[in-house]
C-alpha cells in the first residue's frame, strides 16, 4: 500500500514516529499514555514470540508463561530486595531465558502440533502454579503494591516516566530482534522453518538452534514481564492465562511473521482495539480470528506486507493447508527415523 513511497522518506517517517513516541507524554492525557505503554509492552512480548514462531516456525502456545515468569521474578525481587531496577531486569531476563530453554528442550524431539500442545501444557502448569503457590506468588490475588522502580536515579513513579522507560526498552528489544533476524542465526532459523533437511545438510545444528531461539524469545518476553510490573505496580495470574498466549500469536500473525515492525503494528491493532472498541466485546476475537485466517491465506507478511513496510520474509505458503502441512512436517522426528522424511520420488522422464 505504501510501497510506492521512496525508502529515504519511509526512514524519515519512521524516525518521526519514534520522536513522536518520545513526545507523546506532552501531547495526550494519561489514559492514552497508559494505552500506548500497554501496546509497547505487548510489542516486546510479541517480539519474543516472533523469533520463535515467525522466524523458527515453532508454534508456541505457552508464551504467556514466559511473560509471567519475567513479571513474577521482577515483582518478587522488587518486593523482597532493594535491588536496583537494572539488576532486576538482568535477573528477570536471564531467569526467564533459562525457563524458556527448559521448555525449549522439548523441541529437541518434537515439533509442529505436538510442540504446540507441550507449550500449551507448560503454560497451563505455570498458571496453576501461580494460583496455588500462595507463599511465593500470592495465589489468585497476586502481588499488589510493588514499589515503582528507580532506573539509575531516574524515578519512574509518574506514568509519563514509566512510559518513556518502556518506550526505550521497546526500541532496544526491537533493535536486538532486528540484529538477530539479519544475522546468520536469523537465516538458519528461516532455513529450519522452510526445510529442516537442507538446514541439516548445510551444517546447521537444528535442535540446538531451536532450543536457543526458545531461550532468546523467552528472555525478551521476560523483559516484557518486567515492563508490565512497572506499568501496573501489580502482578496477578489473570494476566498470564492461555488467552494471553493466543493474543501474542494473533499479534505476530496479524503484524507479520519474521518482520521487524510486525509485532508493533500487530499490537497497535490488537491491543488498541481492545482498549478503544470495548463495545465490541467478544466479537473482537471473532473478527481477529477471521483476520488471521485471511492473512495466512493471502498476505502471509501480515500488516507489514499489506502496508508495504519493509521486506517480507514470511512463509510463502499459498494456502492455510500448505502452512499447516509445513508446520506438521516440521514435527517429523529427525534423521534416525527419517526413512519417510523425504519421499523417494523419481521424476518420470522420457
Amino acid at each position, binding site marked *: 500500500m505504501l510501497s510506492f513511497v521512496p525508502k529515504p522518506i519511509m526512514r524519515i517517517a519512521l524516525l518521526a514516529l519514534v520522536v513522536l513516541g518520545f513526545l507523546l507524554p506532552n501531547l495526550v492525557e494519561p489514559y492514552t499514555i497508559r494505552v500506548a505503554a500497554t501496546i509497547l509492552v505487548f510489542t516486546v512480548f510479541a517480539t519474543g514470540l516472533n523469533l520463535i514462531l515467525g522466524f523458527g516456525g515453532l508454534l508456541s502456545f505457552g508464551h504467556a508463561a514466559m511473560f509471567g515468569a519475567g513479571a513474577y521474578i521482577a515483582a518478587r525481587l522488587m518486593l523482597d530486595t532493594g535491588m536496583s531496577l537494572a539488576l532486576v531486569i538482568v535477573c528477570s531476563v536471564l531467569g526467564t531465558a533459562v525457563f524458556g530453554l527448559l521448555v525449549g528442550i522439548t523441541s529437541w524431539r518434537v515439533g509442529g502440533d505436538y510442540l504446540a500442545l507441550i507449550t500449551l501444557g507448560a503454560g497451563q502448569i505455570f498458571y496453576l502454579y501461580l494460583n496455588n503457590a500462595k507463599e511465593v506468588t500470592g495465589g489468585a490475588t497476586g502481588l499488589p503494591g510493588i514499589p515503582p522502580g528507580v532506573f539509575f536515579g531516574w524515578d519512574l513513579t509518574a506514568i509519563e516516566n514509566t512510559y518513556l522507560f518502556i518506550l526505550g526498552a521497546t526500541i532496544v528489544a526491537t533493535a536486538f530482534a532486528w540484529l538477530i533476524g539479519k544475522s546468520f542465526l536469523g537465516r538458519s532459523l528461516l532455513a529450519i522453518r522452510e526445510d529442516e533437511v537442507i*538446514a541439516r545438510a548445510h551444517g546447521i545444528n537444528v535442535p540446538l538452534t531451536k532450543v536457543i531461539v526458545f531461550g532468546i524469545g523467552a528472555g525478551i518476553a521476560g523483559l516484557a514481564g518486567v515492563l508490565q510490573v512497572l506499568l501496573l505496580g501489580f502482578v496477578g495470574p489473570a494476566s498470564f492465562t492461555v488467552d494471553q498466549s493466543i493474543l501474542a500469536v494473533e499479534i505476530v500473525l496479524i503484524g507479520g511473521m519474521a518482520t521487524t515492525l510486525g509485532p508493533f503494528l500487530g499490537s497497535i491493532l490488537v491491543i488498541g482495539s481492545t482498549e478503544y472498541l470495548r463495545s465490541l466485546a467478544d466479537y473482537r476475537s471473532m473478527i481477529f480470528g477471521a483476520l488471521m485466517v485471511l492473512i495466512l491465506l493471502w498476505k502471509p507478511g501480515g500488516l507489514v506486507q499489506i502496508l508495504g513496510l519493509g521486506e517480507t520474509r514470511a512463509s510463502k505458503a499459498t494456502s492455510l493447508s500448505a502452512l499447516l502441512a509445513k508446520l506438521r512436517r516440521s514435527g517429523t522426528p529427525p*534423521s534416525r527415523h527419517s526413512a519417510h522424511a523425504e519421499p523417494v520420488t523419481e*521424476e518420470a522422464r522420457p
Partner: protein
Amino acid sequence: MSTTVTDPIFRATGVGCRFGGVIALDSVDFEIGRNEIVGLIGPNGSGKTTLLNVLSGIYKSTSGELEVDGRPSRFMSSRRLSRDYGLARTFQNIRLCSSLTVRENVLIGMHSRFKWYDSILPFGPGSREKKAAANVEEILEFVGIGDKADEIATDLAYGDQRRVEIARALATSPRLLLLDEPAAGMNPREARVLVDLIHRIHAERDMAVVVIEHNMNVVMNTASRVMVLDAGLCIAHGDPKTVSADPHVLEAYLGKRFRDA
C-alpha cells in the same frame, strides 16, 4: 569389474538400505577418489538417490560400512559430515528457501563459518557477515548468476534455481560435492553450460564430484568413471565407454531383447 582408488575420500563397503520390506539398496561397494568426477546412473528406482542420501547422512544405512577420510561415518549426522568432512550436496527436487533471496540462500551454506557472537554483532568493519557476503558474490559469479543475487530464489527460472543449489553447496567449501540430477529440466544448451560448470568446479575448486544424471550427454562428458545401479545393486563399473556397451546395462535400461543388440 572393480576399479580400485588409492586413498579414497569416501568408501562404502556392502552398503544396504531398506525401508521396511523394500530393499532400496542391496549391497553396494563404492569408492570416491580425492579428485575425480564419478557418474552414477541407473533406471528409475534403482537406488541412486538413496545411495546419495546414505552418503550424506540423511538416511542411515541398514547394513554395511561407510568411511570418510578413513573414519567410520555410518552413524554421522548430515550436519557433521557437512561441517567437519566437507561433504555438500544438491537435491533432486529443488529445495530452496522460498522466502529468502538468492544471496540469503547461499549464505545458509556458510553457516558453520560464524561464531555465536556474530548473531548480535553482525556488522562493523571486517565482520564475518561482510566477508561471507563478498564470498557469496564470487560464488554466484562462478556459477553464472551474479546478477540475480537479490531476487527471491524460487522466482528464478528452473535452470537458475539448480545453480543456486549448486552455489549453496559450494558455499560450504566442500571437498566432495554430490549432485543429484543437476540437469533435470534443462534444455540441451543449458545442459552443455552445466557440463562446463561441473568441469570448472572440478578443476578450479579442486574437489571430487559425484553426479547422478539421466542425461547421458552430461554423464559421458563429465565423469571419468561411471557406476551403474539397478535394483539396489551395482551392475557395472568403469570408464564411460565400457559401461555404455556393457550388456547388463543395456538389459537394465532396455530389457532382455536388446541385450545383444
